[in-house]
């Protein structure tokens, strides 16, 4: 490695790649070479920096200037002004929502300032394809430490004392999982990484794999030492090709350096890791289905117990943790259990990565201490709701979770507070919805997802969710019947208590939680045949405001049902009997005269 006076970090997370960071990067490189700066300035491709909606984004060090929404043509100005003359290119800086001024220093942006990055400590800062950059930031020191200075039991005790709980959803104490597996009978044991991230709107695991793959490899090797396993598997979905690629590169580099393989650190400890690419079935995120899939069986769950700690992969005791959980392990070993336990709340230690999606200004990835309020995450870091709309609810935990309405925005987020509100932490997806979202429709969306992804092994999930979906479909299309709400509740109770795995047991949650907080919306759909949010097409009535209609006739030409009539230059009228509520007239009208109620 060489010394440079400036590093230009170009985000190459999947979000920025889709906004074409690659051509920005090559334009920067090209112009840096043209101006003869290639020995002074280094361009580094990193993983996800977090503010995905601002992509392509770059950071320039040593000053830490953050540029956003770049186009290849901006490269010339950045090189000529910033890199040569030291002048910040103001027009390319980010202006936070509600602020008059553009901010140069990334550390001064609320989005970054309020974060505490443990799992994401390297993501967006290092080149994920360079093991050297990982090592420069204390990479593999934790592995070196446990192998040369700690007993397996001490490692387990450290993880237990840290209070780390599983980041995949259920929040089971990680140290206990390790201890159960270590104590289980048998000589052959396995370490598995669950990288089958499937919740709609959650992408923290992908970002860690893409941005800091070595942190997962190191943590798995540490666990291997603690439970006396010599082989690990990473089960990652095929929809994450970049993550698979970078994992493979990382595994090969780690082997080259002798950080995986035989006799690691000269201690006689052997450990190696392989990836297994899943075909993208949501149910394979469930641990027993995932293990079956690694074995080459159908990805279907089985009853627990026995838990994987007793009988896991190929019937052998197995530790299975999620990507984000793994990424927390090396810092815990290096900084101590006490350090980690000092962050967060009483029963939820450390930080949590949240993926902000939906109706929020700063969609992207953020990591905050447990106990941070929803308001701070959504409004201070997330920048609030776009377009001056009103916040309505946030869905946490994906299809297994539930929604939280406005009155609970000041709740400190941890495993237990979310459970109390009728939802779950889940993997950390946060889908924010505004006043235009119909909560019945939202519940229907998740039920559709679950119905599609149900593996079909058990009847409650296969048939029960189908019946629930049918009820939701008829409610949203205006055919809701009296007693539908009660029927939904009854079905939910039945499915929750009798489904085989977590997928089915949690599938009714979106319905139950929207019923808990937005029952009136269900009632309006059923009793009044109205959608209060104005989202369910079938329940809308279209009419033309005679005061603003200019009689241009565009709508009547557009209407496929011939429902609109009127004389030229005089207000037009929609015949409700003919109207099929397709909404095409509303899109066409230039005067906003077509109104829905």
């Amino acid at each position, binding site marked *: *490695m*060489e*010394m*440079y*006076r*400036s*590093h230009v*970090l170009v985000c190459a997370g999947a979000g920025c790649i889709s906004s074409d960071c690659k051509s920005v990067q090559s334009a920067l490189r090209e112009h840096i070479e043209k101006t003869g700066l290639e*020995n*002074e300035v280094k361009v580094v491709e990193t993983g996800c920096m977090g503010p995905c909606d601002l992509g392509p984004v770059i950071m320039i*060090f*040593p*000053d*830490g200037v953050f540029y956003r929404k770049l186009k290849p043509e901006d490269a010339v100005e950045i090189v000529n002004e910033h890199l*040569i*003359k*030291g*002048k910040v290119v103001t027009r390319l800086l980010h202006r936070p929502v509600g602020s008059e001024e553009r901010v140069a220093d990334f*550390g001064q942006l609320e989005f970054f300032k309020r974060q505490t990055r443990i799992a994401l400590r390297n993501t967006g*800062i*290092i080149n994920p394809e360079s093991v*050297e*950059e990982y*090592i*420069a*930031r*204390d*990479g*593999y*020191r934790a592995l*070196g*430490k446990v*192998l*040369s*200075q700690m007993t397996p039991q001490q490692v387990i005790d450290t993880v237990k004392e840290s209070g780390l709980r599983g980041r995949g959803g259920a929040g089971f104490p990680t140290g206990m999982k390790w201890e159960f597996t270590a104590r289980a009978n048998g000589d052959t044991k396995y370490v598995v990484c669950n990288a089958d991230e499937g919740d709609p709107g959650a992408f923290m695991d992908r970002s860690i794999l893409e941005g800091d793959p070595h942190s997962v490899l190191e943590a798995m090797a540490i666990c291997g030492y603690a439970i006396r396993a010599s082989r690990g598997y990473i089960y990652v979905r095929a929809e994450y090709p970049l993550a698979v690629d970078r994992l493979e590169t990382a595994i090969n580099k780690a082997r080259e*350096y*002798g*950080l995986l393989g035989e006799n*690691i*650190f*000269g201690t006689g400890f052997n450990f190696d890791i392989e990836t297994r690419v899943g075909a993208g079935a949501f149910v394979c995120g469930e641990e027993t289905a995932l293990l079956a899939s690694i074995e080459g069986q159908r990805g279907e769950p089985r009853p627990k117990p026995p838990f994987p700690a007793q009988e896991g992969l190929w019937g052998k005791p197995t530790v299975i943790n999620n990507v984000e959980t793994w990424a927390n392990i090396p810092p815990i070993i290096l900084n101590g259990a006490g350090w980690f336990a000092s962050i967060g709340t009483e029963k939820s230690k450390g930080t949590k990565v949240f993926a902000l999606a939906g109706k929020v200004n700063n969609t992207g990835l953020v990591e905050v201490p447990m106990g941070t309020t929803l308001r701070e995450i959504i409004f201070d870091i997330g920048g609030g709701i776009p377009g001056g709309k009103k916040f309505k609810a946030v869905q946490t935990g994906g299809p297994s979770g539930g929604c939280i309405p406005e009155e609970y925005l000041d709740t400190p987020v941890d495993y237990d507070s979310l459970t109390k509100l009728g939802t779950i932490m889940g993997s950390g997806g946060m889908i924010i919805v505004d006043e235009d979202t119909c909560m019945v429709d939202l519940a229907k969306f998740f039920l559709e997802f679950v119905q599609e992804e149900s593996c079909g092994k058990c009847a409650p999930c296969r048939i029960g969710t189908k019946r629930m979906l049918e009820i939701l479909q008829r409610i949203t299309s205006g055919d809701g019947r009296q007693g539908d709400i009660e029927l939904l509740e009854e079905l939910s109770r039945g499915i929750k208590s009798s489904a085989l795995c977590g997928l089915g047991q949690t599938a009714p949650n979106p319905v139950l939680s929207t019923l808990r907080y937005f029952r009136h919306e269900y009632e309006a759909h059923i009793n009044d045949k109205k959608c209060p949010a104005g989202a369910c097409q079938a329940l809308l009535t279209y009419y033309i405001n005679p005061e603003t209609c200019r009689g241009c006739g565009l709508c009547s030409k557009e209407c496929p049902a011939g429902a609109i009539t009127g004389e030229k230059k005089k207000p037009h009228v929609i015949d409700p009997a003919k109207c099929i509520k397709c909404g095409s007239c509303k899109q066409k009208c230039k005067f906003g005269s077509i109104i829905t109620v």
Partner: protein
Amino acid sequence: MKSLEELDKLRDRLQQEMKIRDKDYDVAITVSMGTCGIAAGAREIVKALLEELKQQGLNNVALTQTSCVGLCQHEPLLEVTRGSEKTTYVNVDQEMAKEIVRKHLVEGTIVKDWTAPKK
């Protein structure tokens, strides 16, 4: 990798290059890079400084640029900032730049003769 010591040695070497991303430096050298500075050869000064910083293995120094500071006749011009202490060197050439790194940054003595314009 045969031992933790070996890893630590490697890390220390690699950190030299990576420290720049921590925004955690003790000294900043800021070279004036207005049109006047560039015309007077400031680009070469930056290269010389970087070379010497590498030579000396200094990784706690930020080498940055700024625009014209209004003393165009004294370009190339650079400023060394350590905490609240600021020193401006004027009419710097490549050799002087290297000497400033050795004297001011390594030894800690300000080269007073070069801080004021020559009479």
